[in-house]
């Protein structure tokens, strides 16, 4: 087994660890760095619970090898602090069990950054990438719209 030492830029900090080339980014974030906010769900790219940002864009961290993330700028839910979308999720009670919440918030935040004036079609297109088994969809939609409409 080949083990290599890599340095990743995560939440603005350089973090070094040892990985297998076959390790996915999600596992490395959780098990090597203790960043357990990104959740394992399907591990198949379907549910979005593992969503992080890579260079500001949403990325399912179960679909990326950790080695591919070298040289890229990674943000996890732990790196978001006091953003309007986090506040809006609380205000709109946009969760029940909360398992999907970090992934939804990361995707919503990427959307808000990329398209501050996103209309319904773009919102739907982006948010279809995440699944909430507690079906908090209406509240999540209200939360993201409250941020988009107030910034627009």
């Amino acid at each position: 087994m080949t083990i290599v030492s890599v340095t990743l830029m995560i939440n603005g900090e350089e973090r070094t660890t040892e990985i297998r080339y076959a390790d996915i980014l999600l596992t490395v974030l959780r098990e090597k760095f203790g960043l357990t906010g990104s959740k394992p769900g399907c591990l198949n790219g379907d549910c979005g619970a593992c969503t992080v940002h890579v260079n500001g864009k949403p990325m399912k961290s179960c679909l990326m090898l950790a080695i591919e993330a070298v040289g890229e700028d990674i943000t996890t839910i732990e790196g978001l602090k006091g953003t309007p979308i986090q506040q809006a999720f609380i205000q709109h009670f946009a969760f029940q069990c909360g398992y999907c919440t970090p992934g939804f918030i990361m995707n919503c935040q990427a959307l808000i950054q990329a398209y501050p004036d996103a209309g319904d079609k773009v919102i739907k297109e982006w948010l279809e990438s995440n699944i909430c088994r507690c079906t908090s969809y209406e509240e999540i939609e209200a939360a993201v719209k409250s941020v988009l409409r107030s910034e627009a």
Partner: protein
Amino acid sequence: MIPFDFDYFNPETVQEAYHLYHSLTEAGREPVYFSGGTEIITLGRIHQLYTDAVIDLKGIPECRTAQLDDEHLYLGAALPLTAVEEARLFPLLMKNVKEIADHTAREKVTLGGNICGNIFYREAVLPFLLSDSSFVIAGKDGLKVQSIHDVFEEHIQLAPGEFLVQTITEKNFLTAPHVNIKRKRQWDTGYPVVTVAAAIVGRRLRIGISGLCPFPFRSYEVEAALNEPALSPEQKAELAISHMPAPILNDSEASAEYRLFVLKNTLTDILVAFEGMGRR
């Protein structure tokens, strides 16, 4: 977790990638090319794919190009599908890739990965089939340019170690009237029952179909039926259905009969829409 180990290589040139593949093969290894890697990661996890050496193509500049000159559009095979959408250079392809997977996954799935993958749903190839595009392929003599019709027959036909570098599409085709229709069973997400891409070139309708058979295709018999001048849209669609290749997929997403039923209605809708645009 991927239950086996592999080495990872990150070549910067086409030649380096091709030579790596061959030296690894000669050493008894089982290399695979990787661009978005979504199929390798997801199938590897469930033991449906094995490799001991991954050659990542996305560091090769030719594989990441998105460039339009006076006559042609060049798109790199390692472009993520979202980059294809955002480049806004090929309207039919933009609409087509927007229907693949979901937005976040499309940040990772690449154009070449979809065209060369193993899943049935490789619909990104349809706009290239309709436009008679060419593929740039890396092989033992360097780069070669081949008509898509010579290298894509159900699957991309590549010799061991060859890989897709770029697509080349004539600029004239980019503005052709077109539609891309993806019919799903019930929800907005999930695999399609059938996807149809259509374009009008020189007053003739061209059609590409994915999701009906275990492979995407463009069929000249089907197109001849759809362009039969004496028939009504329903009759053309009926005749076209009788020329579909075999086998028709029959699975939990949809039965073969249902797929054909949906396809016939979709073809009729397309014919009516184009006639409404004053084609005839």
